[in-house]
């Protein structure tokens, strides 16, 4: 019996102690008519060897394409040590550290993670993670509405330059909380959200402005101006940031005169494999003043009865298992295992390592964009400075071009036109530090021949 240790002798002895004849008798309180007959949709069990062969075949058939897609998930190098440590049984198979004395490993990792995230974002406090960047933004929006004591409104300004999947996730999660998400357009020349666009949201007060940095196009927003503008109108500022980019870019805590109030984002670039989209981790940081509105778990430092330093979950009174329907959020778990990976990743790379990674991504994407734009008909869409993504305009339908590239095992980018029809045939490309010159050249060549064929057709 896979995974079940009971011998016949064990079973007999245990049933004796319970005082029943059979295991089946233990289910005698369940109405007979409800008992399941068979599980038609579930095949018979496989041995570990058989399932290994099956999964190896499944993992193989999708090939090993070269990835130039970013759009919220980035193909970074992950130090080998990161997952060798993270998958140690003591991290992998432990649960939420309810018994702090028996969970100091996990608790200290959470505290160190929080410390690292506050260092990266320049804010005072961090929670111990949420599901992913998009759902973290949803929680940030809810939090901002709760936390803003100056204006009582549920309006939140949401630039269209925020990743469309993030905006949809926010909408799904907050839709029944009466939040009014006001979309703000972007400048089609620069790709930036300007103050002028913000002003179109009207004079009514709003609780918060969301500021993506970089935005979905890779373009850098004028975060200082946006922050000052929103705060001058008594709104909070929620930064949506890429943690690797923060190695080079001004942290939310430094934006404008007073810094952003809240920052959130996707932790995947900090040591998580692409893995089809998850599990990743969302992070959420804020100024000290808002800590009691911060959802999710928080580890805090304390002492034991002998005065030795230790760590424990704290401020649990905000959480659903204590506060139930009055909790700051319904969220129960954090992404402990991914937090562990991110913490080890940041410890190994350090600030300088992250900076090198960021600079390499920037340089590679610059080179990629430059080379692709040498292909006739391909041109950059936006002018403003950008981080490690570039929006390009193609002379043929993006979908067709991507399909043709995929046949050559090149994943050419993210189809922006589907989400932003006003941009026409638009493609978002990214080259992380892992993309080599040869791969970039191969992409250029494949794109040139694909477009040549398209033109000829």
């Amino acid at each position, binding site marked *: 019996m896979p*995974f*079940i240790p*009971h011998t016949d002798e064990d079973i007999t002895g245990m049933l004796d102690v*319970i005082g029943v004849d059979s*295991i089946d008798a*233990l*289910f005698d309180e369940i*109405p007979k008519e409800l*008992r*399941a007959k068979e599980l038609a*949709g*579930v095949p018979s069990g*496989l041995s570990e060897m058989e*399932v290994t062969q099956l*999964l190896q075949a499944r*993992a193989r058939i*999708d090939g090993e394409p070269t990835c130039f897609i970013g759009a919220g998930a980035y193909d970074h190098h992950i130090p080998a040590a990161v997952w060798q440590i993270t998958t*140690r*049984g*003591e991290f*992998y*198979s*432990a*649960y939420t550290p*309810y018994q702090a*004395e*028996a*969970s*100091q490993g996990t608790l*200290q990792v959470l*505290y*160190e993670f929080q410390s690292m995230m506050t*260092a990266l974002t320049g804010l005072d*406090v*961090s929670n111990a993670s949420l599901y992913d960047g998009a*759902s973290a933004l949803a929680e940030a929006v809810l939090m901002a509405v709760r936390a803003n004591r100056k204006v009582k409104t549920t309006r939140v300004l949401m630039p269209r330059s925020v990743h469309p999947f993030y905006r949809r996730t926010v909408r799904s999660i907050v839709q029944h909380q*009466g939040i009014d998400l006001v979309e703000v357009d972007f400048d089609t020349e620069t790709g930036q959200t300007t103050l002028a666009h913000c002003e179109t949201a009207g004079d009514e007060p709003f609780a918060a402005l969301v500021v993506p940095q970089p935005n979905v196009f890779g373009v850098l927003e004028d975060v*200082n101006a946006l922050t000052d503008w929103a705060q001058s109108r008594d709104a909070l500022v929620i930064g949506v940031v890429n943690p690797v980019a923060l190695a080079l870019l*001004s942290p939310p805590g430094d934006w404008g005169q007073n810094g952003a109030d809240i920052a959130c984002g996707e932790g995947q670039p900090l040591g998580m494999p692409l893995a*089809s*989209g998850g*599990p990743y981790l969302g992070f959420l940081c804020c100024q000290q003043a808002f800590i009691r509105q911060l959802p999710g778990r928080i580890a*805090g430092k*304390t002492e034991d*009865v002998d005065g*030795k330093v230790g760590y424990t979950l704290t401020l649990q009174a905000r959480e*659903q*298992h204590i506060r139930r*329907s009055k909790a700051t959020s*319904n969220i129960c778990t954090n992404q*402990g*295992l991914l*937090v562990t990976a991110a913490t080890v990743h940041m410890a*190994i790379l*350090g600030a300088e390592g992250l900076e*090198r990674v960021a600079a390499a991504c*920037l340089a590679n994407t610059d080179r990629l964009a430059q080379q692709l734009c040498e292909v006739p008909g391909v041109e950059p869409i936006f002018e403003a*400075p950008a981080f490690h993504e570039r929006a390009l305009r193609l002379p043929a339908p993006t979908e067709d071009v991507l399909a043709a590239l995929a046949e050559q095992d090149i*994943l050419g980018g*993210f189809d922006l036109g589907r989400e932003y029809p006003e941009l026409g045939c638009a493609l978002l490309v990214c080259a992380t530090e892992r993309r080599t010159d040869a791969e970039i050249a191969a992409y250029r060549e494949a794109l040139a021949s694909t477009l040549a064929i398209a033109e000829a057709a």
Partner: protein
Amino acid sequence: MLIHEQSRPGRRATAQAPLETADHGDLPQALRRKQRAALPEVSELQAVRHYTRLSQQNFSIDTHFYPLGSCTMKYNPRACNSLASLPGFLARHPAAPESHSQGIMACLHELQDMLKSVTGMHAVSLAPAAGAQGELAGVMMIRAYHDARGDHERREMLVPDAAHGTNPASAIMAGFKVREVPTGSNGDVDIAALRDAVGPQTAGIMLTNPSTVGVFDRSIQAIAKSVHEAGGLLYYDGANLNAILGKVRPGDMGFDVIHMNLHKTFSTPHGGGGPGAGPVGVSKRLEPYLPIPLVTQGDDERYHWLDEDDRPESIGRMTAFGGNMGILLRAYIYARMLGAEGMRRVSEFATLNANYLQARLRDAGFQLAYPERRASHEFIITLKKEAKAFDVNTMDFAKRLLDYGYHAPTTYFPLLVPECLLIEPTETEPKEALDGFVESMNKIRAEAENDPETVKQAPHSLPLRRLDDVRAARQLDVAWKPAEGTA
């Protein structure tokens, strides 16, 4: 010692970053970082040593019996980890085209099918990232259903008083009011109170069955009838699915929506508190509202994603990229190794272990919360008697158990049973582990009687003694900061 405290300015012994810093002179000054973030500066060895040693300070399934009620801490098969980590799976970008995704989509599609079969539901979405998100998706679908019918007055969600805190919290997130339904003294929902509670305002009821008090609610059919007749829907909290896997199906009990906690029933890693995965299953009438994306198989045998365009009535997207794929893969692998026969064994042996442990503790003189009931895969003892007699409380017992090498059961939950321990041994523990636990409980009770201070000051054998939670909350310190002027 924190990793930060081992940091030295300029230390960098890593091969992990690019060997040189590429030019980034074009970045506008105003948008640049002025000062490097105060991340630790340590060597690879220091990081490896630090986190290896930290890990050793954890209890975990791989090292300890961990009978944490309601959390289903069972063995996480190592094959699930290594196969979900095959390079082909790890390297796939979430926006990769279907042409390069057939392998993983086949796994996801089969997982949807297996979960449908084992829950008796009509359709399944794998999108929610965790149990609580599955709950939210579930109640949002209930709301979407009523709203689509123009039934806008149904704004009340019934929740038993024994429920997980996530239930009322999720209901609130979906815009419902919460109304508590009491639990009867036999552990079943108080059906009379329920009948009083239902009405035209009832959107539905959120139930776990077996419930968090560790018993199977025998009146489930009456409950379903009552709620359905009032026009409400039944929501099944899958937290305790391990207890009935393959034996009873929520769909057959009359539930309209279910979420599953894959890190419980399908043994994906608990990971120190996550990640989870919280697929939802629904009856036919709720199918249009399932969160996206979903995987479907075309006539050409190829797999396709269903997204917003295909499912316009969907409650939408729960995370940016559609779910915790790495966790779903692990659950898929586990399910394939179990097979139909293995799934049934899960609930059988989880129930056998719980009932055996319950009987042994009862025979040893511990008081069961529901002594006349069968245990499901978990059960409750109350230490009220011991607390009164020896002035030693449940938390003291819990901390002392750590000294004996057992992770404590869940304490003080459910809230309605005083001084309670909710004990869930799971099916993967051998009889010897259960016997050892009983022996330790007996010893601790004897200590409580003869030497209560030892119990009240436990633990004694761990790297730290009892931690001061109050201090943590009062003197908040939630992040290390560099000394002024250094970073």
